[in-house]
């Protein structure tokens, strides 16, 4: 699944925390990739290290029983991110 960050919201600090907290609600293994670099979506340090700027297209993937629910929740989370 691909989804763009809101234009003015970088995936740092509080937004990154929101994203990782959402991913952590699910059993599925969830990955987030930016420009071909994929990391564990439940690792705050890894997500922060992506350095994704506002408007960046994120690619999300999930494996596990609740994978679809995880992707749905993460898409809603990303769309709704505010500073």
């Amino acid at each position, binding site marked *: 699944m691909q989804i763009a960050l809101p234009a003015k919201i970088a995936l740092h*600090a509080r937004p990154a*925390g929101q994203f990782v*907290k959402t991913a*952590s*609600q699910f059993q599925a293994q969830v990955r987030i990739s930016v420009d071909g670099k994929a990391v564990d979506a439940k690792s*705050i*340090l890894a997500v*922060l290290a992506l350095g994704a700027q506002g408007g960046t297209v994120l690619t999300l993937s999930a494996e596990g029983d609740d994978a679809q629910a995880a992707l749905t929740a993460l898409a809603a989370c990303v769309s709704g991110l505010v500073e």
Partner: protein
Amino acid sequence: MGVTKVVGIVLVSHSRDLARGLADLASQVAGPEVRVEPAGGGPDGTLGTSGVTVGDAIARAEAGQGVVVLADLGSAVLTVKHVTENLNGSVRLVDAPFVEGAIAAAVMAAAGQALDDVARAAEETRGACKL
């Protein structure tokens, strides 16, 4: 998640400012669900650590789900061990980098993860590379 009780975090540093600053940063990343309590400095604001300060911070951080404690250097670890040796198993001193471990632990705690998982998230940051 606002009403759910989560694991608390205590940050023990020789410097009051360092503990407070890191608590601010971790709280901003993790959000309002988690209590991140600084326990920095010795008596009278000197550089050092204080068992009383650490004990008070643990008490503030405990919401019924346990507390993960991170320490900066050397004798801060000894202070924490001294304070916690008479407490039960719900307080966990973790072997983790101070900044990275605090951020990881705070986010996992805010996500509602259990004490073991929060402690593991902090300790898994030992291998984190910055470049």
